[in-house]
């Protein structure tokens, strides 16, 4: 079985400061990894994904994440945050070898990023 742990439920940070949102996963097989962002009263929007290849993945809005297989981590980073980055961020994992009808996402519990002026 797979699981995702987001270690921080809330991360407050000042505008223009760097931020790292932590995500660790547990899986006995190889995985695909995703970060989604959710703004208040909105659906989830994909920030970035790791499927294979380069372990450093760049996404939208200046975010990037690094896949670390030995540490089973996929931390999300941004060198300088804006007020508009205030949102909830979800890390998710899926099994690329799950054929047929299911590519189910397993979500972490989310991290609320609060950017203060």
């Amino acid at each position: 079985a797979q699981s995702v742990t987001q270690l921080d439920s809330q991360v407050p940070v000042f505008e223009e400061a760097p931020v790292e949102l932590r995500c660790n996963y547990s899986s006995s097989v190889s995985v695909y990894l995703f970060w989604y962002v959710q703004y208040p009263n909105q659906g989830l929007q994909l920030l970035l994904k790791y499927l294979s290849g380069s372990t450093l993945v760049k996404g939208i809005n200046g975010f990037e994440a690094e896949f670390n297989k030995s540490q089973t981590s996929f931390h999300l980073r941004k060198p300088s945050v804006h007020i508009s980055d205030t949102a909830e961020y979800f890390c998710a994992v899926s099994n690329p070898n799950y054929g047929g009808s299911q590519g189910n996402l397993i979500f972490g519990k989310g991290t609320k990023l609060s950017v203060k002026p």
Partner: protein
Amino acid sequence: DAMVIQNPRYQVTQFGKPVTLSCSQTLNHNVMYWYQQKSSQAPKLLFHYYDKDFNNEADTPDNFQSRRPNTSFCFLDIRSPGLGDAAMYLCATTPTWGSTLYNEQFFGPGTRLTVL
């Protein structure tokens, strides 16, 4: 633009009064999902369709049903909503297995359900 649309965005219903939430997609994706997301929690998968094949999660209450009359539309029916069913309901789609986009889910904006 191709997208996932959910209607209505906000729905208010009374305790025990059946309610239907709607999702449509212009992406022509084979798989459609319904999630329930309660406040400050991760989305919880209720069920999904692969084409017309319905897949229910083991812990989804019988109170929740779904219909997919065609590729584009999927409905979530809550037969007798309780106060605990108040949540955001998210619809998502993904293309068929083997597609380069498989495993990436595309989400609609959600419907926030209030039960009075």
